[in-house]
């Protein structure tokens, strides 16, 4: 691997890890900043991939829409009290062209309730488009395809 490619990989991995950490530290308000302004975030149940366009259960097509979702989670929604833990692995750059990277990764999300009991909440794949602009990497698109498409109870915090 050339130095440049290795640097790109390190930067992409850092973005993925930062994404996971912000969610796990309940810094939801910072989550939209990891996307470009017209960034897309979707959660798609794996069984819906057969149909195009695939039906998402969570869908934002701008930072503004992500901020609405966060505002709703903070002010309006009632959901199971828990801590989340996002684990990102198997990060792989599938293509790189003109500063735009297609990236695949695996995610695992655990939830721990207020009694300290942990369950595997969701496992699946991230399909990301990551853009390099102004010296910073951000998501143009992040699609979480859920293997766990039978959602335990409900999905509040982004995967």
């Amino acid at each position, binding site marked *: 691997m050339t130095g440049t490619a290795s640097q790109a990989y390190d930067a992409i991995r850092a973005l993925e890890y930062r994404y996971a950490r912000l969610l796990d530290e309940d810094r939801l308000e910072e989550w939209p900043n990891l996307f470009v302004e017209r960034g897309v975030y979707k*959660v798609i*149940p794996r*069984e*819906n991939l057969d*149909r195009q*366009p*695939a*039906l*998402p*259960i*969570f*869908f*934002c*097509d*701008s930072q*503004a*829409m992500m*901020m*609405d*979702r966060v*505002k*709703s989670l903070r*002010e*309006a*929604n*009632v*959901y*199971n009290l828990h801590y989340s833990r996002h684990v990102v692995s198997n990060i792989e750059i599938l293509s790189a062209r003109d500063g735009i990277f297609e990236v695949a990764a695996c995610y695992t999300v655990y939830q721990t309730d207020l009694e300290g009991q942990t369950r595997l909440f969701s496992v699946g794949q991230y399909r990301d488009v990551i853009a390099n602009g102004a010296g910073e990497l951000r998501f143009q698109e992040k699609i979480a395809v859920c293997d766990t*498409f*039978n*959602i*335990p*109870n*409900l*999905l*509040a915090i982004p995967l």
Partner: protein
Amino acid sequence: MSHEAPAVASPSFAGPSRDGSRVPFELFTRADVFAREQEAIFRGPVWNYVALEAELPEPCDFKTSFVGDTPIIVSRAEDGSLHAFVNRCAHRGATVQRQACGNARQHRCVYHQWAYNARGELVGVPYRRGVPGMGGYAADFDPKAHGLARLQVASHKGVIFASFSADTAPLEDYLDEPLIAAIDRLFSRPVKVLGHMRQRVRGNWKLYSENTRDPYHAALLHGFHATFGLYRTNQKRKGGSDRARAHSTGVTFGDDWRQASQSGNIGQDKFVTNYSLAAPSLLEGRPDFNDGVTVSITSIFPCLVIQQIMNTLATRHIRPKAADEFELYWTYFGYQDDDEQMTACRLKQANLVGPAGLISMEDSEAIELIQRAIVRDGREDSFLEFGGLHADLDQDRQGEATIRAFWRYYAGLMGLA
């Protein structure tokens, strides 16, 4: 000594009070209650929703589904007729069809390769005549006696129901007029399935039946509308029920939501804020109907909810798994003549409903909160007197009369009345 039919053991569990206003918690927790429900309700004289015809449009299309907790296959035969049969091999009881949906002229059990056609009839038995020195069935073996167990099937406007019982009233009588009108309204044009959503809820299935017959909780539990200035408690409501009071349907006539947000919010204090959506494109749709109805919720006993919330259209199939667990299976649809813009709008509004729904995610949490707390004191009751004890469902668009009616109907089927 004569052989007498054994006396039917009276149940060891209590029923709801006669007026349906008191419901013992043990009806939500006990395995023997759940087992009796499978026989008396889901295999009783009811029509169970199983699928939409739009999910199996072509000959030999099939979909696996459930009646109560029994796995079934819903199938369209070569001639277009609809069939439903238990997904359990007549030989040794193995699951026959392992795929969720597909197209198959035959459903073949992997264990010993018994094969069934699209009507559930046995059409293939390996080594039926035996091979030298091995196996085979007797000459009087009759394949007709070894098909998959069949259910009655009826479809109204493409909504497919199945019944184990030959005593079930014809579907249109079972549904009755206001419910037929509610289905006809949403299925007046050919529909197109857009996808599915599923959630696994650690709660009793009847808690969800109550939830969809409960207007009292709507503005109290669900905060999205009020928080973003979209909900007004003076919105006009109208409802209806069948003669037997098993089902319920209700509509809300909405203001234009964007106008509502400008004219001030008089929702619950808890949620009164000055927020508005930074991305109002979420709610930009165009009406599917010209009747001014923005929300329509129809609950058909025992396991179906049909919804229209703005431009979101879905069936919700309640699939009981155990006394303390059910799956909620959403089939999300649009119309075949939707243009690209309308489909995009429906996909975006899918944010509102389902397991991550901005206006619906609270329901399953409320149900789990109940199930977690009713582990003991089974003879203590759930209390359902909001709006008074009258039984006039038409007057009671905010009260609990519809839930009480559900419990009276339930008690009748369960032999608890």
